[in-house]
């Protein structure tokens, strides 16, 4: 019989290298991960300073950083971030609140899934942006239509991932629980629900990306606040460094949203991650 598992002492032993070489290892790891990104910005800066780039189109990164700093310290960009996060956040949470319970139900009840599936497929294949004018007609040009178009686009990845997750639960585990006399509710609570968490997270991360994408699009049409609005507005007013600052902010928002979800995923379903 083989015991292919390390005792805690062995595991600790494997990690305790000398501190100096550990720092070097970490530095090397960081360089391997982010070297290219750093190189990209450095190259941009150098090209700007050498005059190879037209500053009217590509301002130097330090000017973008300055514009970002001004925007943040004056509070102007902060207001935009708050309103953008609010729009995307409300829409995303609403999609979660509807998508996950509905998905759990649909994944378990075949007739319900069969009845709803064609219309869901139709809605899903219709671009949310194509429907945006319809939502504007219904909800007006205010917050309602913006939140709703983001909600619409984020609902489907969550819903479909949840349905898929429930349907792909290992039936052998279900049967095992059943063989011990577990009730349907217990099986749902103890087997189906936890097993669906990893696929649901796939849907959540996809939705978070979609939410930001739709946020920008919605804010570019008929908004007077928000990071997406700021990108368009800065361009109209030829404040190119500010435009880049807003774009940079959007990228940061996307990364931050993903980071939060990854942390949550680690906490909730570490068992399904990095199988080593």
């Amino acid at each position: 019989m083989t015991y292919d598992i390390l005792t805690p002492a062995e595991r600790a032993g494997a990690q305790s290298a000398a501190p100096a070489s550990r720092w070097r290892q970490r530095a090397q790891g960081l360089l391997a991960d982010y070297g290219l990104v750093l190189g990209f910005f450095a190259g941009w800066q150098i090209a700007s300073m050498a005059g190879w780039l037209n500053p009217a189109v590509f301002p130097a990164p330090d000017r973008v950083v300055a514009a970002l700093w001004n925007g943040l310290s004056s509070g102007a960009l902060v207001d935009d971030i708050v309103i953008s996060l609010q729009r995307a956040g409300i829409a995303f949470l609403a999609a979660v609140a509807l998508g996950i319970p509905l998905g759990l139900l649909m994944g378990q009840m075949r007739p319900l899934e069969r009845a709803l599936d064609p219309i869901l497929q139709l809605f899903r294949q219709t671009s949310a942006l194509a429907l945006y004018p319809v939502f504007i007609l219904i909800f007006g040009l205010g917050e309602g239509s913006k939140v709703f178009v983001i909600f619409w686009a984020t609902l489907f990845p969550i819903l479909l991932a949840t349905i898929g997750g429930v349907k792909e639960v290992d039936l052998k585990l279900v049967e095992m629980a059943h063989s011990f006399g577990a009730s349907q509710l217990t099986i749902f609570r103890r087997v189906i629900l936890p097993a669906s968490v990893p696929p649901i997270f796939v849907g959540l991360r996809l939705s978070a990306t979609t939410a930001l994408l739709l946020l920008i699009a919605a804010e570019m049409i008929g908004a007077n606040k928000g990071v997406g609005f700021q990108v368009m507005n800065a361009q109209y007013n030829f404040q190119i460094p500010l435009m880049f600052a807003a774009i940079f902010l959007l990228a940061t928002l996307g990364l931050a949203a993903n980071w939060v979800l990854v942390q949550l995923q680690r906490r909730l379903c570490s068992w399904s991650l990095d199988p080593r």
Partner: protein
Amino acid sequence: MFDTHQTTSGAVTIRDLSKSFHLDGAPLTVLRHLDLDIPAGQSLAIVGASGSGKTTLLRILAGLEEPDSGDVLIDDFPVRGLGRDRSVIFQEPRLIPWLNVLRNVAFGLEVQGVARTEAETRARRYLRLVGLTEFESALPRQLSGGMAQRVGIARALTVQPEILLLDEPLGALDAMTKLAMQKELSRIWAEERVTMVLVTHDLEEAIFLADRVMVLPREKGGTPKLMDIDLTRPRDRSDREFVRVRQQLMSEFGLH
């Protein structure tokens, strides 16, 4: 009859049991008018070619499958469906990947409504029995195949069944692990004094573990053959008597 067990409950009686499946509309009879008595505490091995209905019989005993007709009685009471007097050990360990070893072993008790602390206390006893005490906080993915299967065995025992139903429990293990696990099962059975029904396609495993071997015929619905294994325990595969019994069983099986 070789009988080391004085257990009084867990006797299985099967009367006139039939079961057929529908394959592409055509009925396929896998069990026809089967009668069988398993005394309490006995270990019975069911062997037979694939498709002979051995797993179906076990699943009916477990309550995971309904017979078309006939009765299953446990201690003279007819049973339908699942029951806490029986637990199943499947071919795969079927461990819950997000629960650690201890909580996996306690799982059966917990879904039966036993409080978590109580369930874990009882689970620890069976983890000790299968020799995995120090791995109680490991996750299933960190275990080898043999260890995982022992967790599955502990989980089945923790609910203290009268009848243990094993569906090719060692079929997926490598040869060495399999031999070690057969010894383990033999020891556990002797300690726990349960009725054991073991489905296997391994004749040696059947002879090593069982008081009695039932051979399901290859032709569907034919009469099964029963053979007592009167060998002293613990059994030794290289023993001359063991080899003789094996040859006898092979010819019964039509392999000679």
